[in-house]
């Protein structure tokens, strides 16, 4: 049985940062990932990372922008921590070797981003996430005390009799063997759940595994109704065009040639927060001022060509390869598309969940710093600051604990459960069909605009799919790289994520941030300035509430 002081599940930015921070504290660290770490979805974060590093800028300004962006649902104590620690985290990354853009004096250069009152987004061309991910992986290759388990799929979290974390059961994808890992503390860093929606900007691996595994053992999920639709995604495929494009000056037009953001956000225009821009676009499209393919146009040609090649190179490629459009010459058609889940496993500001010894960081966690709407370039910051804090805290907490001896019964149960899925014969629907139905249902009823009837329909469908997922038949009966069984397990994770999202969206009878209820179109601070939590208690999910932490910013009307 492999044993580690800290076991990190997921090796994107949050997971790798947590592992490195834990390693600095000493002890043995294991990091498990269902894909090779550099394949993680953190790669897709193009635009940059926010930090109030400049003397003229202040962490308070960054924090206020974040609070306002969250539509006052973000916890202000957590937001203060994130924004205060941002400059140090940025400099740490720079010292480790991230090739951040420089200005002509050789200092770190920055760009403007949505919802921000100052340009404070630091970047590497438009491959910021990739550059940071690869540099952290360089550090992992350097650290001998971090054991990497690449292409291991975690199926269940394991507790001792007292309910304390004791480890995890995982499947080695390469040979199909199952292994029980013992660990004093476990950090979930499994990323988001965008695959619950079709289309989505998220990679195929973003199936909410960690969120579902924590949910199964009773950890409350918070703010799950807050699902961000990014304003600029390609129709059909859902691929992302970075907000950096608008940061560099790109403009939005409807089919009639109007720069419609003048109506919705006369001050910030295209750089209003994402929920505001997405809602504006969807309104234009719904009211018949979009193009025939259900889109509006993003005009990047106003940005100087040299600057495009230097700073937006990746989206030149995306436009050319995936839309057949030369963005330096003509506008590209875009629409709002699923992008990010603000909610996740409820944690404190050290990443600790309600389960002793279980931590969560990054998109799978909800601290909550993003509240109702995440600002662009705050997600990288969230993964790094709270990944580091979780890693440090978990490693320190483990020092006073003995190595747990988790029961091998859990391993046997999991082996049996998965063997049954593999062996299942029968007439059930295919995994891919169920996944497609789930995705289109969520995109139809639980997207930019929502109402009670649609959400109830979605809930019914999700619950039916939950039953159907128990009967899917598999083609692959083998052990080596059986991706078929992994897809079946991921489908179950996704359905549980979807259920939590829809239940929370039904519960919140107001409009705030990414949740816009056409049947409750106003924000209602009197009744709903609070977090919604969903947890399974016994078998049925139950809703509860928790307070929003306010420190220095009273809720006020939100205008951009």
């Amino acid at each position, binding site marked *: 049985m492999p044993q580690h002081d800290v076991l990190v599940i997921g090796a994107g930015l949050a997971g790798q940062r947590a592992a490195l921070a834990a390693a600095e504290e000493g002890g043995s660290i294991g990091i498990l990932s269902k*894909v*090779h770490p*550099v*394949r*993680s*979805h953190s*790669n*897709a974060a193009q635009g940059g990372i926010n930090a109030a590093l400049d003397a003229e800028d202040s962490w308070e300004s960054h924090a206020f922008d974040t609070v306002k962006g969250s539509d006052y649902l973000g916890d202000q104590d957590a937001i203060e921590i994130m924004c205060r620690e941002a400059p140090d985290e940025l*400099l740490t990354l*720079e*010292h*480790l*070797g991230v*090739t*951040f*853009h*420089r*200005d*002509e*004096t*050789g*200092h*770190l250069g920055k760009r403007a981003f949505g919802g921000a009152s100052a340009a404070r987004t630091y970047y*590497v*061309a438009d*491959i910021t996430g*990739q550059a940071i991910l*690869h*540099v952290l992986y*360089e*550090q992992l*290759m*350097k650290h001998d005390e971090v054991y990497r388990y*690449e292409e291991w799929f975690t199926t269940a979290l394991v507790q001792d009799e007292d309910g304390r974390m004791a480890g995890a059961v995982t499947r080695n994808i390469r040979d199909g063997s199952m292994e029980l890992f013992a660990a004093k503390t476990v950090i979930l860093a499994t990323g988001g759940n965008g695959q619950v929606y079709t289309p989505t900007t998220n*990679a*195929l*691996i973003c199936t909410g595994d960690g969120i579902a595994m924590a949910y199964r053992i009773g950890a409350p999920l918070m703010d799950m109704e807050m699902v961000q639709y990014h304003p600029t995604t390609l129709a059909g*495929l859902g*691929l992302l065009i970075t907000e950096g494009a608008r940061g560099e000056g790109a403009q939005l037009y409807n089919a009639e040639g109007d720069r419609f953001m003048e109506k919705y956000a006369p001050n910030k225009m295209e750089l209003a927060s994402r929920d505001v821009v997405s809602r504006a676009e969807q309104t234009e499209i719904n009211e018949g001022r979009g193009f025939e393919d259900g889109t509006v146009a993003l005009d990047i040609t106003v940005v100087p*060509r*040299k600057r495009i*090649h230097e700073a937006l*190179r*990746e989206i030149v*490629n995306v436009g050319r*390869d*995936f839309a057949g459009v030369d963005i330096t010459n003509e506008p590209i058609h875009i629409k709002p598309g699923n992008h990010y889940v603000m909610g996740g496993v409820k944690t404190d500001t050290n990443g600790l969940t309600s389960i002793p010894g279980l931590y969560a960081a990054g998109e799978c966690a909800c601290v909550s710093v993003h509240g109702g709407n995440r600002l662009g370039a705050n997600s990288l910051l969230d993964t790094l600051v709270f990944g580091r804090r979780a890693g440090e805290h978990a490693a320190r907490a483990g020092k006073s604990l003995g190595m747990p001896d988790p029961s091998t019964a859990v391993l046997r149960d999991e082996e049996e459960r998965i063997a049954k899925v593999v062996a299942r014969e029968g007439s059930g629907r*295919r*995994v*891919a*069909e169920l996944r497609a139905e789930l995705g289109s249902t969520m995109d139809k009823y639980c997207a930019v605009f929502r109402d009670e009837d649609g959400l109830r329909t979605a809930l019914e469908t999700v619950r039916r799919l939950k039953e159907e997922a128990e009967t899917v038949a598999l*083609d*692959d*009966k*083998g052990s*080596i*790289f*059986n*991706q078929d069984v992994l*897809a079946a397990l991921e489908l179950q994770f996704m359905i549980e994520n979807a259920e939590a999202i829809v239940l929370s969206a039904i519960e919140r009878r107001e409009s705030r941030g990414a949740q816009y209820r056409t049947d409750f179109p106003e924000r209602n601070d009197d009744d709903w300035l609070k977090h919604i939590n969903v947890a399974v208690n016994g078998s049925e999910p139950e809703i509860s509430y928790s307070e929003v932490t306010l420190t220095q910013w009273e809720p006020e009307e939100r205008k951009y």
Partner: protein
Amino acid sequence: MADYTLKIRRFNPESGDAAYWQDFGIDLPPERSVLDGILQAKDREDASIGIRCSCRAAICGSCGVRINGKSRLACNTRIGEAAAEAAASNGGAVVVEPMGNMPVLKDLIVDMDAVHWKKVQRVVPWLLPEGPPPDREYLVPAEAMIDVTQSMACIHCGVCVSACLSLEVDPDFIGPAALAKAYRFVGDPRDGATEERLADLAEDPHGIYDCTHCFACIEVCPKDVAPMSQIMRLRRRATDDFEIKDRNNGYGHEQAFTTLIEKYGTLHEAQLLPRSFGDGSLLKSQISPHGLKNLIPAAPTAIRGLVSGKVSPRKALTHPKLPDQNQVRRIFKQIESKDERLELNLYIVGEAGEGEPEEQVGKEGVE
């Protein structure tokens, strides 16, 4: 009737059977990707087809395969274009097989750890700064950061590793991707081990001089990293900037090559080898112990060339200069008179053939 046919190379190590080909009919518009085609086959017909994939947008680097024999990412290869290529052969079926130069684990999945990642680990792939970090950021030229960003853009998909001809001959060659990774540190002004890194890669018999300059990696790279260009820059830094005289005679070979071209305009092949052992000088190769040590074992090859008639004594002794040899010398003078070496980097100059000519000739100071 399906729009396209994918002919996929299947291999299941558990079955005990040899690899075989299987055809799948695909219904997709031509602008969709080969990956979308493979996923459709998985979704509709056979979910046991093994392929790594995740982002669908050429960012994660998971889905490197060979399509119609060419190494590339399945997600940014359009199925319509692949079918058009295949129209001449295979009855129009798009042939998909695993990448080369790496062991196959299952179907389209190869063992990248055993080859690619081992080589990356070989180049000491982390920053080695000199002394403790500054209080704030390191102050470095903007161009230097943009320059190494071309190497940072590598997504480690392995497509260049698959296409590399040198690796096919010498599996120990460090290879295009790992050497591009090495340049990311050599070109980074924050790194304090530039000379050590260059000496290490120059002295390794499977290092920077093992590349045969065939351009295959540049052609297939989906991210315009141009690995071979990074290897050539490592060489120029090793020779020009640090004058590292390596035991592989990489330095001597470069000196010999340029000396001969400057002198004759075309390559005097009979002198190339001897001059290589003398750092470019014919005389030095015959009197220095290092030159002699290398020259003597090469003698049988020279004799075989003479006996077989591949080299004639007249050709070996005389080599005509180009009629316009002065023009070649002028080019040498022109280039050598510049303070900075001119280097192409897509991140700085944009793509060739575009307007805005004043921005086309970007330059990058190496120092």
